[in-house]
């Protein structure tokens, strides 16, 4: 039966993905003025100096001479097969740019998430075990400071500390130049928020489990505290954390945008921001679409994963 539920959930996500495509399509048509000129990357002020033949060519190429509904359907069809047009700056297909940027972002997210999960879960467990004592207060202080620190500012502070004051880490996040070492600063920066959130959820979930009777039974039958905490309580407390990890995975995509740019890490976030600076509409559309679909898919993956782990949640 589980397979049917998963298939149903997959089908339900199709309208969402089409909706995201619609949003991205609308983005290109929100530009004040002619989308063909916008696709050429020219400001409205420069309208009169534009080569009309060039504009006409772009208009034809993008199909802007057709009715909007036709444009929409063909854009969506093209987007589905990964055809987003060409960047006007480099005249490289946008799909190629996205494809080149994707591995950096994915690697960054994986490293970040691993870091956030390890740090977050450890802090949460420490907090729960030492409830009401200094260990708890320290862990909770770290989490509230972590949640409240502006990511892009934290990136600058880390850069200042570890690339200038103590020059032990590379300032850019380009792994082709510096290897995995380049991932340390960016991933620490982005991991701050999710780690703090995971720590909170882990703490409250762990406290709930520790107050249950099974914990008393375990103590009564003489298990060591380590075994109770790390095996019995942990296993029962970790479920809510998995949901949070999933949602955070999606949030990381947003958090990574500014940080990738600061550390000049050649990922999707940098691609988006460079597209914005160059007014490269098609690159912006492509990047927004890919980031958002990835976001929606990772939420979907979490839902399915959660159904597999916890049979009670089968909606």
């Amino acid at each position, binding site marked *: 039966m589980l397979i049917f539920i998963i298939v149903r959930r997959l089908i339900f996500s199709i309208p*969402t993905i089409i909706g995201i495509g619609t949003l991205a399509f609308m983005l290109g048509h929100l530009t004040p003025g002619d989308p063909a000129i916008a696709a050429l990357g020219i400001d409205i002020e420069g309208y009169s100096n534009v080569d009309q033949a060039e504009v006409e060519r772009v208009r034809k190429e993008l199909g802007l001479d057709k009715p909007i509904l036709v444009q929409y359907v063909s854009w969506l069809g093209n987007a589905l097969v990964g055809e987003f047009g060409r960047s006007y700056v480099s005249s490289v297909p946008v799909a190629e740019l996205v494809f080149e940027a994707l591995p950096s972002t994915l690697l960054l997210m994986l490293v970040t998430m691993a870091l956030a999960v390890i740090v977050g879960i450890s802090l949460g467990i420490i907090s729960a075990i030492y409830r009401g004592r200094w260990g708890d207060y320290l862990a909770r202080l770290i989490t*509230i400071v972590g949640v409240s620190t502006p990511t892009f500012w934290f990136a600058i502070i880390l850069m200042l500390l570890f690339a200038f004051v103590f020059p032990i880490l590379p300032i850019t996040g380009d792994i082709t130049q510096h290897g995995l070492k380049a991932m340390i600063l960016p991933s620490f920066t982005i991991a701050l928020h999710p780690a703090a959130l995971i720590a909170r959820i882990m703490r409250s979930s762990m406290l709930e489990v520790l107050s249950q009777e099974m914990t008393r039974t375990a103590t009564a039958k003489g298990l060591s505290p380590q075994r109770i905490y790390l095996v019995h309580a942990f296993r029962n407390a970790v479920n809510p954390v998995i949901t949070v990890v999933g949602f955070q995975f999606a949030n990381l995509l947003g958090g990574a945008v500014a940080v990738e740019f600061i550390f000049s890490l050649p990922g999707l976030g940098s691609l988006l921001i460079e597209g914005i600076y160059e007014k490269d509409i098609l690159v912006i559309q492509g990047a927004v679409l890919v980031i958002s679909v990835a976001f929606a898919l990772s939420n979907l993956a979490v839902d399915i994963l959660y159904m597999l782990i916890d049979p009670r949640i089968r909606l």
Partner: protein
Amino acid sequence: MKTDQLNSKSHNEIIPGKWARFVEGFRIFLSERLNAFSLGLTVFLILVAVFAPWIAPHPYDQVNPSYGMQPPSFEHLMGTDQAGRDILSRVLIGSRISLSIGLIAVIIGLFSGVLIGGFSGYFGGLIDEFVMRIVEIFMSVPGIVMALALVAVLGPSLPFIILALSIRRITQFARITRGAVLSVKQQDYVMACHGIGMSHIRIFFIHVLPNCAAPIIVLSSVMLGNVILTESTLSFLGMGIQEPTPSWGTMIAKGNEYLTFAPWVSVFPGLFLFLTMLAFNLLGDGLRDHLDPRGGNIV
């Protein structure tokens, strides 16, 4: 649940009036030291923002190129920037701008979101299905990506920045309100309202919506911090508030260029941004524990 807790002391006495219950609830809220701290910090930051032009030791736009990049001193407590402008004064005026943008965006999100989500949840059916699909689509675009793309396309002027910041809030408020309305509308007293023939409008605004206030209040506090952060990130990337208007994000971005020899240019504005986020996050946490003790995971 809420009223039980508030009335526990006085349950043999006459039931206190609304105002007395509010004061009593407020007293309980403040008895937690962390809540008193976060409320104090919030009030302090708001006062600073309101009175910034009178507190600021120097005019925020007074340029003095020969006195640029000065480290913190008694004359300039946070030093000066590349144009010799006093950073403290700019940070203070910047707090005015950040807080008002945050407030406007949250108010827009609050009113539209609560109405959309509330009606959607109250009437249910196809409209609800449709509205929730739209909300889900908007929630799939990370907040900063949505804001960046919108501002990039429309241009970084104040109305568009506020629009870009509020769209996501609308969906967030809509989702929270819908959830709350769904659980409230099944209560017996709402059935009773229907039974005595009250109009939907009256039931919705007088009997359902006020009982959904707790999660909405909590979300407002968290969102304020969130919007201010997003605005700063936009400004940091050059897509938000433009020079010469002071904004924490632009100041941090400028300082980033001089990081190695004048770190104070970006450190101090960031510190203020951090304090603001801390205040609203702590306040949100405190309010959640106080108003909505069981709904911890909805925001």
